[in-house]
């Protein structure tokens, strides 16, 4: 099963290498990993999407907790949470398809963030289904390139991570 894990870590160099090394060294899988500074500049927040049975997920969270630089680990999958991902899609924008691209972007509440004579760059934010859906819709029009952020997530309600 797929799990979304939030991790608070010391905002220091080498921490990402420790986490990545833990996953590769123990044969755990990473589907996506997002990291950036949190509200406290000395702490970074990571969102890791991984896959495994209960035993493996238990090992992942325990092993993460064991790292000295890791301050807190929460498997969000155990509760209600929102997750978002952003994608930039550079798509072929011949005059004949421009209308269609605008319409699709609009439906997905996306934005055109860059324009050239031959391409549009579309920005869309949403959960994974939404991101996959717009990619599938734009594919027939000729996607040149995409960049996805990977998932970030937060638990619902008043509950805090830190």
């Amino acid at each position, binding site marked *: 099963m797929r799990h979304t894990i939030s991790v608070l870590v010391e905002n220091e160099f*080498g921490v990402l290498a*420790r986490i990545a*090394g833990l996953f590769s060294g123990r044969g755990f899988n990473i589907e996506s990993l997002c990291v950036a500074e949190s509200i406290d500049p000395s702490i970074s927040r990571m969102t890791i999407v991984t896959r495994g049975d209960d*035993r493996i997920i238990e*090992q992942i969270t325990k*092993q993460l907790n064991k790292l*000295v*630089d890791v301050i807190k680990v929460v498997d969000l999958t155990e509760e209600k949470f929102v997750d978002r991902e952003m994608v930039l899609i550079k798509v072929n924008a011949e005059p004949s398809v421009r209308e269609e691209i605008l319409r699709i972007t609009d439906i997905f509440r996306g934005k055109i963030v860059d324009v050239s004579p031959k391409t549009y760059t579309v920005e869309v934010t949403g959960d994974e289904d939404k991101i996959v859906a717009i990619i599938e819709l734009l594919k027939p029009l000729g996607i040149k390139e995409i960049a996805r952020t990977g998932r970030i997530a937060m638990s619902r309600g008043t509950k805090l991570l830190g």
Partner: protein
Amino acid sequence: MKKSGAGIFIESLIREKVNTIFGYPGGSVLNIYDILFDNPHIRHILVRHEQGAVHAADGYARASGRPGVCVVTSGPGATNTVTGIATAYMDSIPVLIFTGQVPTPMIGNDAFQEADIIGISRPCTKHSYLVRDISSLARTIHEAFSIATTGRPGPVLVDLPKDVLSTEIEYESPKEVKIRGYRPNYEGHAGQIKKVVSAIIKASRPVIFAGGGVILSVASKELTELAKITNIPVTNSLMGLGGFSELDPLSLGMCGMHGTFMANMALTETDLIIAIGVRFDDRVTGKLDEFAVNAKIIHIDIDPTAIGKNVPVDIPIVGDVKNVLKKLNLLLKGEKKEWERDHHVWLEQIEKWKSTYPLTYKQEKDKKIKPQYVIEQINEITRGDAIIATEVGQNQMWTAQYYKFTKPRTLLTSGGLGTMGYGFPAAIGAQVAFPDKIVFDIAGDGSFQMNVQELATAVKYNLPVKVAILNNGYLGMVRQWQQLFYNRRYSYTALDSTPDFVKLAEAYGAVGLRAEKPEDVRKVIKEAIDTPKPVVIDFVVEPEENVYPMVPAGRPISEMILL
């Protein structure tokens, strides 16, 4: 007061009550060595290879319970420590490794003698630091000591760039160490401990399986008390030997691949395993699907990742073994149960296993020396009171089987990583910690040659370590596997062109002895012990002797090849 980085380093070691370090100088650590030259508080033991420095620090730590410290230079000095670090990591030994590094502006430029030792050692250290700023140096060193010695102990590496060591700063001693991401749980959950009590009361065929965690947490007294209160037999992992006296009638000896028949049968037939400070290594469990299928498992360990990693656990307790056992014993003492009577049938069964298939070998008079005989004689002559280091392979397993360990911290052996070449430098480290104790390294002719250069260290500091080489002319354990599972095709396991160990010892200024006949064995052991110098004893033993019992790899531990 103004101090250089090197001065702060030394000052911090002294504050950590370090009085002995093992090391090897080089360009990046010249500033440290300049202070060591005439520092009255710290004794520096000069080894002959950086791997020896880490193993010696590790042996010092295992024997004494204090952290072992070593200092090496950058680049090759640092990379030479890696096997030693991985050895300490696998066995949870508190070792501090201070490596020199090129000056900070040169890091990453492929400078002379530069190695990314933080990157190289990351998977085999408990934690590591690159000190980029002298202002954080003292705090970092104290954090490193704290992390290495608390929780599940382990090696911590601190990388020290030359400019950090050479610049000066106004030195203030740092305040208490506090690391927000590091809070080992020492207490153990009270509710879980109560559950353990009722599980123990309900069990009819319980067995205690105790490992290195008992030794690390100084809990052999509490373990012994638990066994005595409940009349439950105890088997040890290799790392646990010495944590429970093997002379105690409740001792089953070691379990696992080369464990005793009774220990492996007990672990197979039991209805309750009380696992204490162990990690259910594959050398213990054999085939996992068939390990203790009818047993409930209680697992006490300070490291949550050890619990449930290999075997499913019914009652997990995260906590310091000593603390948990104290609380558990207190509760058990209050229980009204006739332990003697209730475990009588089970203990009788174990006694039957013991008498049917005891550890056995046969020393015939006019034949070659049996390696087991050598170890039994060392055990007898030292009255089980020596510190015994081993190398890895047959020598290690025979030592585990035939030396009767009765006290913690008397067996120094590379259990997890299985590092050939560990034993001799570890024995040197132990002898440094205990100059008056008898320290043996039980070695093979292969392993000893992997760190033989440390003879110079032993001679230089007059450390009277006794190396007992069980010389069979083979990499014996690998040969045994080739014999049993590869059709006797002894591919590259015969060590021909081995040096004359007596002459080799003499060349280094140590004493060399040899025994070729069984009747010489006791004589040379006594002579070695009476010689106040490092001694190498070449025991010319039966070349194709095997270690039995043996559980073939991947088989359940009840399926033993017996002699």
